[in-house]
């Protein structure tokens, strides 16, 4: 579950910015002829809905229902006891308790007279919901992700940059020669403390001792060939960076002999998404490099934005 600080800083993300996203969405899907758009989220696939309404499901599943010209409605499997908190950190004013998400959606569609329903990434729905929806008398139209989030905006890139700076500062302070002798658990604890106190929503730490790829901590002692990879979520924006105790760096993109691991972080799915290289200008890319060293492997990497023909470190 997400157990970091989930808030809504309206200086960073004004209500008007969210409303502008919804207006853009309506323009993008106007040609589909749907009366309403439905977007699924769960604790792990959270970024689509976060982009649209700032709802961050710390646990469980939800559907965001976006009628044209209206504030999004949240169909929520969490208890109504947390709805006041949800209202305080999202655009959502109407939240409907929905232990059965599709049944609630069908009731809402009947009440509003909606028969042609757009579903964001229809085939990405969990099969349980997909099957239930298929059994209903609704005309379902798949809405591809690029219509919802065409490209990362400057404001989003700025949030990724803030997150990258936060992660980089802590990593470069903690992953040094002074970490030698700590266990990977202890180092993970230090990173967790610093980054969650700085407002991280979610955090994954992977450690390599030089003999394996970066893996979750397992109690080994950090040595001269240890590297740490950190994936950090800050206000719904993921970054990923690697540093090593030896202080070895790599140009990004790297030279010969290195193995590169690329992921797109600015698409709807973010950390949880498909690993790929994204050639679109403005795409936010995780670029992690495996560097051979003395028969072992070191890792170095950063989060970059694609600009012109190359990558710029955020």
């Amino acid at each position, binding site marked *: 579950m997400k*157990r970091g*600080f989930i808030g809504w800083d309206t200086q960073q993300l004004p209500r008007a910015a969210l409303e502008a996203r919804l207006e853009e969405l309506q323009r993008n899907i106007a040609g589909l002829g749907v009366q309403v758009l439905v977007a699924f989220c769960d604790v792990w696939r959270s970024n689509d809905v976060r982009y649209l309404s700032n709802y961050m499901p710390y646990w469980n599943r939800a559907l965001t229902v976006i009628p044209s010209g209206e504030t999004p409605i949240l169909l929520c499997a969490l208890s109504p*006891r947390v709805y006041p*908190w949800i209202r305080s950190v999202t655009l959502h004013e109407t939240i409907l308790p929905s232990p059965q998400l599709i049944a609630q959606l069908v009731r809402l569609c009947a009440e509003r007279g909606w028969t042609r329903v757009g579903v964001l990434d229809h085939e990405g729905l*969990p099969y349980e919901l997909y099957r239930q929806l298929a059994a209903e008398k609704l005309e379902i139209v798949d809405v591809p992700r690029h219509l919802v989030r065409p490209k990362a905006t400057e404001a989003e890139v700025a949030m990724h940059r803030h997150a990258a700076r936060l992660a980089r500062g802590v990593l470069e302070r903690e992953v040094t020669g002074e970490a030698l002798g700590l266990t990977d658990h202890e180092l993970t604890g230090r990173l967790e403390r610093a980054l*969650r*106190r700085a407002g991280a929503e979610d955090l994954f730490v992977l450690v390599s001792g030089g003999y394996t*790829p970066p893996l979750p901590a397992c109690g080994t002692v950090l040595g001269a060939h240890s590297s740490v990879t950190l994936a950090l979520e800050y206000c719904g924006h993921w970054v990923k960076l690697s540093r090593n105790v030896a202080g070895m760096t790599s140009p990004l993109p790297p030279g010969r002999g290195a193995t590169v691991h690329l992921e797109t972080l600015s698409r709807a799915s973010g950390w949880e998404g498909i*690993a790929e290289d994204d050639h679109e200008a403005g795409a936010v890319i995780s670029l992690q490099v495996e560097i051979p060293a003395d028969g072992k492997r070191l890792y170095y990497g950063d989060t970059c934005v694609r600009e012109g023909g190359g990558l710029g470190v955020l």
Partner: protein
Amino acid sequence: MLNPIRKQQYLQLMAERGWDLLLFYGDGWRKDLFRCLINVNFSGPQAVALLSRSGQIRALVTDPWDVEPVGAAIEDEPMLSLRLAEGLRAVLAAEARAIVAVNGLEQMEARFVRAVQEIAGAVPVSATADVEEIRRVKTAEEIEWIRRAAQLADRGYEHFVKVCEPGMTEFELVAEVESFVKAHGAEDNFMLVASGGTEVTGMKPPTARRFQPGDSVTTELTPQVNGYYAQICRTLVIGEPSAAQLQAYSIFAAAQQAAQTYLRPGVDISDVARVQNDVFRARGYGDYTGPQYTRVRGHNLGLYPDELPHVLENVHYICKQDMVLIAHPNTYLPLSGYMVFGDTLLVTAEGCVPLNDTPRKLFHS
């Protein structure tokens, strides 16, 4: 890494059901659906284990960094595919017309189910409920991991009490506790908090609210060790507890004790909920045992922190030896606001034993 006891149980299940192939689909939220056969904390978006009737185990991973740990667990090179649907088509290429079952079918993206269907010629059947039933009764090794997780929960709560102070924000407290449990071996942690008085109706992720004298600070702390979760629920008062807070605590403690006294093999889980709720009813607070004020009176624990069955009066399940669950009568009371209290319990031959040893009291800072 590989759970050999479970493997044999799954093979027996496959034989009984006539399944040729059993897939274990895990994703970033429900890794347990994969880890119940191959206990590797994978990093990629998804991972799939494939168990054949012959006993052969294969795996499909979606992150290059998962190839080595998963390969080590199954002593075979897993297939790597950055796009799971393409990987499923490739790994199942020789399984045309096989009867395929999936543990986690309900959670699987529809496009992945379609990929399986295209190869096998039929929609796969769900194995989730059957596998869940097998997982409910823990092996000796699993109990040992849960015992360690419970010990870490105790130490984590001790740290919670040590660092919690007036003026601290909820998210700073969670950062401190998270740091502690991770530094001492937790690979994950499920943790909810709340703070305040009678206005507090439930727990949620931490906010920037600062603790004040008189606050009840509640938490469910649930560290995960080698995949397995154990939970503790306690309430701490900032400063001296009021008479109302002490009165409320006495009700929660009595309700939890009622569950612990009652729980044994052969009892219906609905009665484990009922005996807790009866304590509230006897004290005049029966109205606060329903869904308006509370979610569940406990739940099973294991590779997932909220396993079924839930402890509710309308859920019927006969408890078995070596199940591990938490009984927590957490709810809102007008006396104190939302309050929590609970321990992880192991069902033994004659009854149950708590795996936590944190003092059973209303803590105060």
